[in-house]
């Protein structure tokens, strides 16, 4: 396996959790709900996935448990913001703080335990193809899930009636409600989809990326996923591109750390965070473009007048 191939493979593993979390958040934001709890849902998914896989020995059970916990955790957020109409920004922060706290408590017994790795799929013959073989046909299963999910969300949002309904709720909840669309119900579902994806992304971290449990192991990836959605102007395939760009930055700085160059490792480690800021600045400096792209009801409270 050549150097380039190896690097591309690791870029994919760094990009996949970002892609999974961001695509879920994209659906939630398209329905008009800004859930800043991605980091919290992700870390809960990571601890659940790791714990269930460790106790049952089955990484797949871990994956499904992580999805379920992510969705349940987001239900908490949905109940507060949609039923009790609390402030979405504050509630999202609460979800993140709660997730980081709870996962630290739940995961205490898992620290230092060797994890169970979700093994890569290896399609015979095809995966032996030069260069693209391993990259396209020999990845872990969740890599394929992330690609399929991106395609499915892109199709759903822009080519189905249900997708149109979801976008209408996000763009103008008042009109959608007047048309008889059940705004709150759709938002509940969208938020839970986002939670499930974030849970899956967490499981990817603790079962594929680094099969172990470390407190705060998401290390801001949930926040980067949130930034990716803005960067992608709420379009699925642009999220895909953004996730791989960030995957490349992450892996690039890791390689640079290994090679040394005399650059402080801390500076290199901070590159993904600095890159997030730079990208956000570049994408949002055009106010008009941002206004056109942002779901118009994003973050606004909705109380139906029955």
């Amino acid at each position, binding site marked *: 396996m050549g150097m380039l191939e190896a690097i591309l493979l690791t870029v994919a593993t760094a990009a996949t959790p970002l892609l999974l979390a961001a695509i879920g958040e994209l659906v939630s934001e398209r329905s008009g709900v800004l859930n800043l709890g991605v980091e919290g849902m992700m870390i809960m998914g990571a601890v659940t996935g790791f714990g269930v896989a460790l106790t049952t020995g089955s990484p797949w059970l871990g994956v499904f448990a992580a999805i379920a916990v992510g969705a349940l955790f987001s239900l908490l957020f949905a109940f507060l913001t949609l*039923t009790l109409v609390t402030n979405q*920004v504050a509630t999202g922060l*609460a979800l993140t703080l709660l997730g980081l706290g709870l996962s630290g408590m739940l995961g205490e017994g898992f620290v230092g335990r060797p994890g169970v790795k979700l093994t890569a799929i290896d399609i015979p013959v095809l995966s032996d193809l030069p260069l693209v073989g391993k990259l396209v046909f020999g990845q872990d299963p969740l890599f394929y899930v992330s690609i399929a999910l991106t395609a499915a969300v892109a199709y759903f949002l822009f080519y189905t009636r249900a997708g149109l309904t979801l976008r209408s709720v996000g763009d103008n909840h008042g009109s959608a409600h007047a048309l008889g669309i059940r705004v709150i119900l759709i938002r509940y579902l969208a938020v839970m989809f986002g939670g499930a994806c974030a849970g899956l992304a967490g499981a990817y971290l603790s079962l594929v990326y680094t099969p172990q449990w470390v407190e705060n192991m998401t290390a*801001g990836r949930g926040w980067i996923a949130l930034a990716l959605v803005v960067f992608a102007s709420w379009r699925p395939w642009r999220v895909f591109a953004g996730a791989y760009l960030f995957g490349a930055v992450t892996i690039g700085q890791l390689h640079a750390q290994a090679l040394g160059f005399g650059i402080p490792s801390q500076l290199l480690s901070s590159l993904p965070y600095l890159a997030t800021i730079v990208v956000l600045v570049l994408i*949002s400096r055009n106010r008009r473009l*941002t206004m056109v792209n942002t779901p118009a009801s994003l*973050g606004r409270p909705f109380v139906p*007048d029955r």
Partner: protein
Amino acid sequence: MRIELVKRPQHSALFSAVSPFIALGLTVIAGAIMFSLLGKNPVDALYYYFIDPLRETWSLHELAVKAAPLILIGVGLSVCYLSNNWNIGAEGQFIIGAVAGSILPIVFPDFQFWFVLPLMLVMGIAGGAAYGAIPALLKVRFNTNEILSSLMLVYVAQLFLDWLVRGPWRNPEGYNFPETRNFHDYAVLPEIWSASGRAHWGFVFALVVAVAVWFVMARTLKGFEVKVIGQSPRAGRFAGFSHGRMVFFAFMLAGGLAGLAGISEVSGAIGQLRPSISPGYGFTAIIVAFLGRLNPLGIVAAGLVLALSYLGGEAAQISIGVSDKVARAFQGMLLFFVLASDTLIHYRIRITSGRARAAGGRAQAAPAGEVPHGHA
């Protein structure tokens, strides 16, 4: 069964006052359930967690040590949130304040005069304010989301501190430990009453700042400006208030106070710089700000409550063997309950059976209209 919200004609004064207590009550109940699930006697656990730390003088001092940064940061954040600026990077501003304030005792250790400490405090405030100005600048100049930029800067600040204490600022006589040299006597923030415990002047700063900011917010035009811009930017424009200047004001005030908290913590409680100088004060202060209902005087009380949750975590670990990680979980739950209880201030909650829906389907965008609705 469904839950319906009925908007109150006016916000309820009763629930404004009571909602933090409802939230605390719910948190204690949830905590009791959590302790039973962990196989501990909930009454014992809650006693060791919330009462035991209050019984001795030295631990009251520890309470003040932990409450000082929480109150300082929480007061600054309340001004941010009231003006609709979502600064969640106080942890980073705290760190940069601590670093900027530590320049004198670490880089110029022989420079020992009585005015070193005041200079350190000023530099700490300046450092925090400057770091807080970055997301403000990006928001005003480039329309960049301040939530994400301020948070990203936390990670950058943590890595910067880590680099300093492992690299250029490492103590030359420190056996390669990742620590800076100890602060000399003129650089240490003194204890208030050293005969009885460790509480330093940071707690006094916190009280003074809380009262001062309360006065500004409640009695001056600036306070009015903050609230008008926060609740309706449009009305603020008509009144001639500058939105951009308010963004800088809020972020630099919060950053400056976080910086003051940082340098006070380092020079009052730690005495040197280490790779990690905060158990998440900058994030816990978000909870403090909301539990105090964004009122500086309420924040003093809330800061003491959250400081107690840190102490209780340590006490419960020693006495009944539950992990001190429980503290973080408690804090997260508390914010949830606070936000949920605050709904009662603006709405009455009506529980109806599923079929009893009244006719009519007009939509009404909720109160604040174009802004995500504030908690003022």
